[in-house]
């Protein structure tokens, strides 16, 4: 159980100091559940510290954090959207910490209060059994061949899809979305909702699929290929952060250290994410091998505007 006022009072009454044993830590994390469970189990094995997991979408994690503001329950938050970390840092909600294991994490994947757990990239997920030719670039999916056969995660719901829209806008591909809309591209749901119709063959390709989810499906035998578009893509690092309100700062820091350790990063690599550390081997193409779109620095400030433009293209 998480130490609440009740257990706190109990401890006081019994005259036990909190330092006698390791306290549990509570981690709120965006998917994938398998990774979160593996990291928690391996960490407990190594340190003896128990981890209470709450796993949901980034949106639900943030909603719970916000509703709990009066009495925060989480010690560590792992999100699938880098913007949540920058925003939490701006609001002064984070405990500054730089893990010694973060030395080989590239600078753009860390700050003084948050650091990437791993990195996903956005790609085209294409079903080879769809009867279409393999696309090589984003613009291919606006061709008549893929008419009404493309899905895309809704950038309002998927943080990574938003980064892609912002990245493509910044790179001057503004005309892409009206063309895709005219070609009948379906924008609906979050990441998995966009992938399932492609697996069954109702659609041929996902524009802006989160690559590791599609790679995981392929590994299970699904008919799906991941294509990194030739004009470049964006990456979606997954930030982890310690909340300032934590009462278990030492244990929380140990958890961050563990996720960035060799063992922790191997767990991350196993689900086809890129490890945050450059010196841990990945099971897939890494940042250095991918062509990236130029970073858009003010994307978050312009979020509302970018989303409005996007939905205008789709006639909503």
């Amino acid at each position, binding site marked *: 159980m998480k130490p609440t006022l*009740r257990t706190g009072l109990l401890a006081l009454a019994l005259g036990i100091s909190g330092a006698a044993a390791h306290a549990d830590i509570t981690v709120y994390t965006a998917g994938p559940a398998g990774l979160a469970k593996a990291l928690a189990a391996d960490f407990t094995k190594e340190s003896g510290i128990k981890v209470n997991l709450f796993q949901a979408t980034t949106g639900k994690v943030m909603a719970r954090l916000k509703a709990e503001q009066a009495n925060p*329950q989480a010690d560590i938050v792992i999100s699938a959207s880098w913007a949540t970390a920058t925003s939490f840092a701006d609001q002064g909600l984070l405990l500054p910490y730089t893990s010694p294991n973060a030395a080989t994490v590239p600078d753009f994947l860390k700050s003084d209060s948050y650091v990437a757990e791993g990195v996903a990239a956005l790609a085209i997920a294409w079903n080879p059994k769809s009867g279409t030719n393999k696309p090589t670039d984003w613009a291919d999916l606006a061709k008549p061949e893929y008419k009404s056969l493309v899905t895309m995660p809704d950038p*309002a719901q998927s*943080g990574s899809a938003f980064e892609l829209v912002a990245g493509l806008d910044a790179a001057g591909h503004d005309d892409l979305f009206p063309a895709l809309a005219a070609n009948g591209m379906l924008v609906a749901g979050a990441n998995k909702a966009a992938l399932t119709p492609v697996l069954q063959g109702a659609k041929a390709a996902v524009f802006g699929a989160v690559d590791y989810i599609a790679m995981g499906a392929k590994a299970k035998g699904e008919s799906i290929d991941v294509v990194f578009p030739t004009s470049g893509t964006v990456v979606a690092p997954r930030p982890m952060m310690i909340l300032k309100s934590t009462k278990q700062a030492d244990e929380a820091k140990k958890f961050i250290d563990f996720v960035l350790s060799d063992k922790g990063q191997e767990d991350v690599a196993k689900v086809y994410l890129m490890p945050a550390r450059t010196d841990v081997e990945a099971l897939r193409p890494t940042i250095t091998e991918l062509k990236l779109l130029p970073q858009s620095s003010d994307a978050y400030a312009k979020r509302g505007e970018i989303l409005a433009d996007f939905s205008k293209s789709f006639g909503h």
Partner: protein
Amino acid sequence: MPLLSGLTAAALVVVVALPFAFIALQAIFPEIGAGSFVRPFAHLGAVLKSEDFGIETRNTLMLGAGVVLASSVIAVPLAGLRALYRLPGALLWDVVFLVPFMIPPYIATLGWILTLQPAGYLQQLTGVNLAGFLFSFPGIVVVMALHSFPVVYFAASRSFATIGARFSDVSRVFGAGPGRAFWRITLPLATPALAASLLLVFAMSIEEYGTPAVLGARFGFDVLVTGIDGSLSDWPIDLPKAALLSLALIVLALLAFALQRRIATARDFDVVGGKNPRAPTRSLGIWQAPVLALFGLVAFISTGLPLLAILATALSRTISGGLAPNNIDLSHFEAILSDTTGAMQAMANSFSLGLIAALVAGVFGIAVAYVTTRGAGRGQRVIDALAMLPNAAPGVVVALGLILLWNQPALPVTPYNTMWILVLAYVCILLPQPVRYTVAAFQQINPSLEAAARISGASPMRTALRIWVPLIAPSVLAAMLLVFTVAARELVASLLVAPVGTDTIGTYIWRQFDQGSVGDGMAMAFLAIIATTLIPLALLGGLRRFERKA
């Protein structure tokens, strides 16, 4: 009586009023989550004036009305045939029509998509797909009505059976045909139960999330609930807007509730008096085969097709492999049964939570129904409205209210972050079901029965045990079954308030769909549906014996 009223009111305040008060506070004070009362009403104008708000409200009303209409078209004829005629395998049909309710709506919807979309199961088998129909307003209405018509079916058939043929026989004596007798006598007499069940369907439809979210998103059909979920999920999170939209939804449901109350209390519907011979049901004669075909057709579309789609997906090694012999394997069931992913624990959690919630809600429902139908004064209307309130709010809003309320640091003890918060959530969300069912049962009991018992010297306790309990027990048990079933698969509230590290059936399946394996999710769904059908089945058997004794 005053003691019971007081206790009931106090319990309602804790379980219902306080969480909703916190939602109202959140709507007014944007920073209440952080314990601050700054900038009141900062959001109100912008939200109410926005174009989305008008469209979402209109769509919500259209959806609610459409599902109510479609559910009654499906359920009322079936219920009439079931209650008034000797239907071969009557109890079996009851069980079969329980199943649509056991299938979580988000699962059924996914099943429909996998079946009807281009390259879906239907196309793989017959070469045609019905995507155009599925992703349309009539499509959403039909999918939702196929899920909710059992609510009307059970309420209406129970009520028709209680009314029996005695009253319509009188009209037959005066020359009315069977159809006319049903329309003019039996159907109007069943008004309280019908109105109550239709209100439940309306409230269920306007607060349903999964189906409008998945199907509606495909053709830009937004309702208030999807708006609420959007403000709770899309970065940046907007709690005040979610709370405001929830209040709008609550207002809609309260209006429907007022309408239902007006209809149900406009006239006197007592049909259970001192002399109550259970009228024998009639034979169907030459209509037996067509009627059975109708029952079979509805059962196949509402139960068979979704179950087959779920099973097909659960048995497919991969989705892209489709319906092919070499794609069939049991790996998804093995993954669930070997419990490597915590599936069994999730099932155990959900079933025990569902059981506790059903017991608590049942007792609660009887108390509320008794106070509101037998009590006097203004208080009873407030109690009735409070018990109805949760029906108006989507689960995600109840969850939000529960967090805001029970996570206050000043509380000396709190159920938050324990399993009890889920019990609170389920009881709160589902309380209207036992209340509606029990109120309708009470409304059909003529108070003269109670008076007769008292005149004959029975104590109030004895009156309750010998008169009410046998008469309301079937309704209460049916409602408790409903609570158990819905609680055992509840998703949206569970996702938000489940204590850290706890999975329920709903959250487990959702995680599989979200980032795990759709096949594992469907295998779990299939096993959960079987289990939630078998448990009530055993109870229904008991219920039948009980009825016979009474």
